[in-house]
């Protein structure tokens, strides 16, 4: 151990170990940092899902549920809250308004928070962990406007009078109820009884939130489920992922994938630097053997030395990983909630395991060769015979790589898939680089910078192939992610450009349409199309009742009043996939949204019957239309031609963009149009934009890791051939090669490598992008000319800079070393 420590210190001072150490630290930091962050994100998402439900599990019912069920929950120490939702009239100021009433018990919300403000449409709000106190009511801004009341006024609900104390801005379990009957009024459950609103036949929804440790929740769920009836609906965390969580989970998966590449590249750099370390110790070992050291002791000495290095790297890498995790947490700060239970040790142990597996798989084979060095090497310049066959070395490296990926991704599928992908890439790049390197170098003068560079690349054929493989795979990934990110961002920005509508106005009466349009125009607000909306129910498909035609699951989505509209023009972002848009000859049918048509198994010409009020409307499908649901505009499943729905009572809907400075005008507008309901989407849009930005930042951090790992491989591969490079450059100098010639030759070498790697990377990225665009994103494959310009423009100078910096020592080699070599 003492000897190993001494050797470690000496090698460190001699500059033999820094690169190996840096690669180990990088691998450990990547694994521990990303797994740590991933665990935090998972825990946080779980917590947020609970917030989204306002508990761990929610039971909904049209009637109060059996008291026994609730008692059972209490007896299991499960926290419980209750709320009742219904439509009710609210009175104030001699005005009345239909409200979406929600009465909440003490304890609500069990998870998540309510957001309240002191004034309607105020930009300032705060979060609280409780509902209104007894005797108080919290009103949505639009409700306060409609009733023309301010906080401090009284509001009457049923038989009780309550104090309007706060403006309700947001609630955790609001969901996405765009077309609820009216603006929200939240009261205490105790006041619901005194309001005396619930009568036989009232449409009331009872919701019970439960919260406990996962195991307790699972056992209660198992107890409860067999007793549920059709009218009951139990929602758990599995079906409560907020839409944002999807984006965050995708980001996390991406971090894992891109991080895997960083880990693999670090592994490769470890293998190369360990190989170099061992090669440089062959003479040392030969001398030790002539002095009587056994093979076992040689192995022990070097293994202990490297083990100590790995331990040190684990500590430093663990700390760096913690820093990395903190960096991610800062980026995602607004999406993370406090989670205490994420272990600090687990990620670090993963990191330690990474270091150990890396050493075992990548450093052990060269160490074995070192151990077998013959003492004869002191007498003759013998190349040690590797005791392990090439196949065995490949197998060990392959097994090590899978083990590394398993530690990191915890998924066989991902690990083997990644390794398979890399193996395929290696093969393709190997073939391509072989073809490239066989191009004769007579196209350029031998003593020109390019000629020398080419000769050097051909000479270090194996290194060149390896470098090409590493750069092209790293560049391909970087290019791929950059392009996907650009595609997605462009897609988002196209659907959510500047001034995207951020407020919906619904329940606009027909006689108000023109007036509203005028008012908005006067206020400088651009108006989108104002769509008419008729509520109707789809009852029959091809003469058969819907109930017999579609699955029970689908019934739930259409067995309700649907919003039907009419329009002469195809709305923006709608594309007719099948059939044709209106002919205008009076024979036109209906246009249906493509995903709904697919779910219901509908095709062109199918006959549909709608019930609108007491009337029946028969039509047939004339076109199937796809649309972009992400856009913040009114979207419709069914669009009719003008004239078909006109006789039915319609309300109108539109969406507008209101800047922060325009928002206060809503108060006046709501007074003038009291029946209009305004749905504020600005917060959600801001949140979506911010999420996209955050995910982009996270991608950039991981890019950084991948690039660091690529740089490590680049440096390792240059150092591996350093000795030959030094000798060659000294020789060139002896024969009259000047410094500018050598520098330029070195630069050209990396330019050629960079160009070839970029060519392969861009080509590979375009192919993969075409697949991703058509298969995953559902958009037409497109060519990315920017990729072919930006990727080489950035990567080649970086490659040349790192390459020249790492080769610097060999460029200054004085020619006199050739005599010393002799």
């Amino acid at each position: 151990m003492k000897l190993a420590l001494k050797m470690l210190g000496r090698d460190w001072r001699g500059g033999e170990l820094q690169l190996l150490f840096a690669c180990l630290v990088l691998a450990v930091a990547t694994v521990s940092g990303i797994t740590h962050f991933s665990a935090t994100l998972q825990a946080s998402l779980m917590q947020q899902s609970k917030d989204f439900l306002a508990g761990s599990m929610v039971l909904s019912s049209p009637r109060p549920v059996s008291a026994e069920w609730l008692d059972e929950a209490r007896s299991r120490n499960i926290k419980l809250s209750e709320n009742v939702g219904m439509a009710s009239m609210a009175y104030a100021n001699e005005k009345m308004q239909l409200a979406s009433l929600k009465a909440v018990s003490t304890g609500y919300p069990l998870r998540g928070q309510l957001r309240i403000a002191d004034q309607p449409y105020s930009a300032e709000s705060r979060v609280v962990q409780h509902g209104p106190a007894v005797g108080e009511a919290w009103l949505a801004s639009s409700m306060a406007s409609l009733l023309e009341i301010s906080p401090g006024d009284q509001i009457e609900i049923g038989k009780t009078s309550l104090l309007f104390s706060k403006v309700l801005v947001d609630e955790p379990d609001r969901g996405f109820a765009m077309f609820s009957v009216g603006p929200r009024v939240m009261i205490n459950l105790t006041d619901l009884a005194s309001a005396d609103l619930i009568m036989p036949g009232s449409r009331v929804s009872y919701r019970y939130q439960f919260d406990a440790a996962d195991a307790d929740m699972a056992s209660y769920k198992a107890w409860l489920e067999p007793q549920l009836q059709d009218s009951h609906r139990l929602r758990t965390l599995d079906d409560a992922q907020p839409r944002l969580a999807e984006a965050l989970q995708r980001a996390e998966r991406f971090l894992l994938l891109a991080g895997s590449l960083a880990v693999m590249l670090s592994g490769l750099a470890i293998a190369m630097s360990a190989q170099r370390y061992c090669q440089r110790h062959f003479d040392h070992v030969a001398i030790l053997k002539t002095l009587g050291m056994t093979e076992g002791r040689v192995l022990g000495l070097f293994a202990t030395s490297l083990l100590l290095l790995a331990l040190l790297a684990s500590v430093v890498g663990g700390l760096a990983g913690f820093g990395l995790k903190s960096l991610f947490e800062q980026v995602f700060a607004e999406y993370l909630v406090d989670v205490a239970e994420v272990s600090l040790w687990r990620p670090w142990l993963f990191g330690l395991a990474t270091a150990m597996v890396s050493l075992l798989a990548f450093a052990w084979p060269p160490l074995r060769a070192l151990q077998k060095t013959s003492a004869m090497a002191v007498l003759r310049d013998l190349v040690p015979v590797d005791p392990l066959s090439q196949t065995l070395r490949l197998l060990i490296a392959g097994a090590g790589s899978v083990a590394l990926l398993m530690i990191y991704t915890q998924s066989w599928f991902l690990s083997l898939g990644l390794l398979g992908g890399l193996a395929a890439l290696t093969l393709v790049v190997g073939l391509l680089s072989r073809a490239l390197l066989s191009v004769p170098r007579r196209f350029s003068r031998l003593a020109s910078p390019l000629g020398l560079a080419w000769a050097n690349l051909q000479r270090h054929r194996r290194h060149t192939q390896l470098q090409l493989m590493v750069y092209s795979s790293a560049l391909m990934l970087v290019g791929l992610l950059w392009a996907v990110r650009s595609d997605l961002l462009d897609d988002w920005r196209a659907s959510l450009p500047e001034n995207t509508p951020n407020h919906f106005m619904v329940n606009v009466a027909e006689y108000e349409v023109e007036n509203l349009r005028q008012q908005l125009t006067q206020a400088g607000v651009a108006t989108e199309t104002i769509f008419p909306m008729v509520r109707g129910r789809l009852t029959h498909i091809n003469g058969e009742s819907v109930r017999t035609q579609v699955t029970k699951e689908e019934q739930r989505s259409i067995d309700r009043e649907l919003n039907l509209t009419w329009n002469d023009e195809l709305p923006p972002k709608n594309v007719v996939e099948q059939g044709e848009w209106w002919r205008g000859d009076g024979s036109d049918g209906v246009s249906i949204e493509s995903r709904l048509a697919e779910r219901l198994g509908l095709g062109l010409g199918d006959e549909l019957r709608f019930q609108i009020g007491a009337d029946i409307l028969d039509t047939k499908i004339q076109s199937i239309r796809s649309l972009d649901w992400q856009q913040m505009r009114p979207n419709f499943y069914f669009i009719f031609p003008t004239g078909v729905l006109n006789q039915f009572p319609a309300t109108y809907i539109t969406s507008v963009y209101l800047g922060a400075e325009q928002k206060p005008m809503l108060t006046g507008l709501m007074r003038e149009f009291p029946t209009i309901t305004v749905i504020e989407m600005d917060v959600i849009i801001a949140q979506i934009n911010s999420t996209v930005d955050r995910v982009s930042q996270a991608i950039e951090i991981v890019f950084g890791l991948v690039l660091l790992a690529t740089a490590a491989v680049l440096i390792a591969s240059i150092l591996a051939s350093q000795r030959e490079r030094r000798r060659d450059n000294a020789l060139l100098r002896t024969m009259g090669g000047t410094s500018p010639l050598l520098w330029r030759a070195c630069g050209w070498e990396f330019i050629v490598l960079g160009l070839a790697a970029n060519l392969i990377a861009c080509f590979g990225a375009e192919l993969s992008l075409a697949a991703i665009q058509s298969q995953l994103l559902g958009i037409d494959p497109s060519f990315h000319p920017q990729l072919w310009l930006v990727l080489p423009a950035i990567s080649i100078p970086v490659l040349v800079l790192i390459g020249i910096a790492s080769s610097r020592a060999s460029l200054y080699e004085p020619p006199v070393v050739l005599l010393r070599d002799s």
Partner: protein
Amino acid sequence: MIIAKKIVKTVTTRAGELTILQGIDLHIKPGESVAIVGSSGSGKSTLLALLAGLDNSTGGEIYLGEQPLHAMNEDQRAILRAERVGFVFQSFQLLQGLTALENIALPLELNRVEGAEQLAEQYLNKVGLGERGHHYPNQLSGGEQQRVAIARAFASQPSVLFADEPTGNLDGETGQRIADLLFDLNRDEDCTLVLVTHDDELAARCERRLRMQSGRLSEEG
């Protein structure tokens, strides 16, 4: 013509400053062949490196022809070497990535000589390896590699050829043949030859023999 005046070379070691050459004076006439002999560590290779402009002296003046090597930087010396100097090393020092023919053509191209490849072929024929031009160094024997190195050294038609233990890595018979080749070509090309060797037989073939001892140079017989 090579003129060295009071050359001093010192290096700094952990133990302190070490003087390798202690004020060497030397005059070599054009076309002369000179052998520098001496024991290991006596400083003969260091002197060769300084005379050839491969290294800088600590003090003194060195002229190669009219050119003051001591006043030149590394790149200026490199250009001078390309024009006027040829080398043969003990361990051949061929570029492994280039063929035999390319190794010979390289210094010609560095010196921007027209028809470098044809000239390289001529010299390859002269050293008897006309058929091996497209072989890489690792496909050639030690003796063959040294022949290529000699062809490379003479191809640029240098005014001075420096050879450092040119037969040191070869067996006796091959060494003898390489020495013959070296002296034959030297005679044909009429260039100055400065060689460092342990081999008395080789040294005896030179017109002058200089002995290096503890950093000082003396003329022999």
